[in-house]
């Protein structure tokens, strides 16, 4: 029996662009055969897709499906968003949850879905993605996407998961844990030590205050491409999600100066990864500051540090420090943070986009945060 006979329905593969308005119908996907649960969404996932505050039109593309004989072979979700370059607004079409089950991969559904996404790139904007897996990365690169990776450091706080992974001889584990915890705990304590500058008042907000828009405007003045932030989008980030890890903790930390005006913000997330990283760590609680900004570099560094401190205080095993801005993360190297590859950010400019210019291949031309695209959603 050939591979095709064993694994896939027959007939031509149809690529269908699903509009946001179509996804409002709760049973939109019910008419498809879905043996591999490609479109079996967890609670909240579709609401998040439809609730995207930067999509202002029900005709906006929100999903691409590959279908063969009414069977769903694969999908990608799309989030319309915006960036600013020299005061001009650019449309960005973020990709999310690009999925083709193993059984259907010989149908080329993945490539067909991807090609359709590329055909929808806003002419003067770009398609983009954050947090691409190592498996998918070559596809992006071979199709001419530009990678502007964010260097990643990991600050280990607890050793349990690391030891369980690397030390197979069970009696040795407690000793190794103690030894590692002493060293790593000291580093984490140093990282968590210290309070923010005395003229800043720190608060954790359950919902983004309206005057935070002042900071977003300041951020948009960056000399380069900066992804657009808004109170609505931040609320969406805090309240939306894919339902994968409902225990994840997300926080918005706001720093105000003495006159009460917002001076900085940080979005943090702590979540449990039941299987995390290519080294197959299990049950690891990883936290991080996934978005931040400050009115000046010093204030920005302060809020980032405060975010890391609070993530550590939440009892995480490790803190993920990924950023294009080395001034935020370099200090943690001295505290034991180790290099751990990169968080992929890739983009493909539209045919008339200013982002095709060579200078946008440099990280210094971008202000993209790890929370962009779908990367904040647990």
């Amino acid at each position, binding site marked *: 029996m*050939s*591979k*095709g006979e064993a694994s*896939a329905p027959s007939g031509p593969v149809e690529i269908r662009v699903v509009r946001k308005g179509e996804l409002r119908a709760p049973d939109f996907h019910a008419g498809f055969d879905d043996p591999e649960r490609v479109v079996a969404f967890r609670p909240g996932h579709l609401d998040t897709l439809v609730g995207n505050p930067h999509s202002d039109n029900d005709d906006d593309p929100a999903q691409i499906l590959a279908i063969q004989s009414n069977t769903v072979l694969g999908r990608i979700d799309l989030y319309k968003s915006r960036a600013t370059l020299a005061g001009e607004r650019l449309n960005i079409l973020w990709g999310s949850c690009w999925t*083709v089950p193993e059984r259907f*991969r*010989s*149908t*080329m*559904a*993945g*490539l*067909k879905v*991807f*090609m359709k996404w*590329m*055909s929808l790139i806003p002419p003067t904007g770009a398609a983009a993605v954050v947090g691409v897996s190592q*498996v998918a990365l*070559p*596809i992006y690169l*071979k*199709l001419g996407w530009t990678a502007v990776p964010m260097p990643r450091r990991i600050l280990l706080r607890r050793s349990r998961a690391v030891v369980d992974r690397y030390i197979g001889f069970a009696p040795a584990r407690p000793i190794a844990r103690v030894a590692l915890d002493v060293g790593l705990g000291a580093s984490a304590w140093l990282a968590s030590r210290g309070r923010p500058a005395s003229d800043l008042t720190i608060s954790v907000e359950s919902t983004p205050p309206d005057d935070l828009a002042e900071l977003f405007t300041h951020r948009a003045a960056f000399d380069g491409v900066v992804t657009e932030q808004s109170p609505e989008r931040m609320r969406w980030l805090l309240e939306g999600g894919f339902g994968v890890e409902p225990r994840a903790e997300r926080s918005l930390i706001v720093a105000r100066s003495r006159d009460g005006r917002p001076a900085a913000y940080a979005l943090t997330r702590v979540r449990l990864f039941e299987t995390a990283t290519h080294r197959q760590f299990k049950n690891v609680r990883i936290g991080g500051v996934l978005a931040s900004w400050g009115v000046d570099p010093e204030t920005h560094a302060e809020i980032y540090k405060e975010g890391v401190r609070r993530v550590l205080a939440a009892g995480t095993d490790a803190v993920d420090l990924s950023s294009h801005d080395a001034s935020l993360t370099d200090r943690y190297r001295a505290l034991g943070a180790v290099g751990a590859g990169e968080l992929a950010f890739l983009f493909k400019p539209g045919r008339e986009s200013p982002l095709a210019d060579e200078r946008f291949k440099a990280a210094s031309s971008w202000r993209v945060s790890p929370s962009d695209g779908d990367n904040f959603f647990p």
Partner: protein
Amino acid sequence: MDQATIRSDIQRVLAETLGVDQSAITPDADSASIEGWDSVNHLNIVLALETTFGVSFEPEEIEAMASVAGVERVVAAKLGAI
């Protein structure tokens, strides 16, 4: 370049990239019948063909190359051999 040479070069590239014997690269073979011919390997094939023949494929052409016959058709058209 004649069609026989093109076909032979294509068979070699496909067999090497997919890690299969050249005898498996028959005219009616496609991604569904050859183990390992998925989207990632498809792009590896495209890159290898571009190097071998000194051409560059458009996205629509890449999509049309999911079978041995499709590859031969696209490459031949690109080289002006048909």
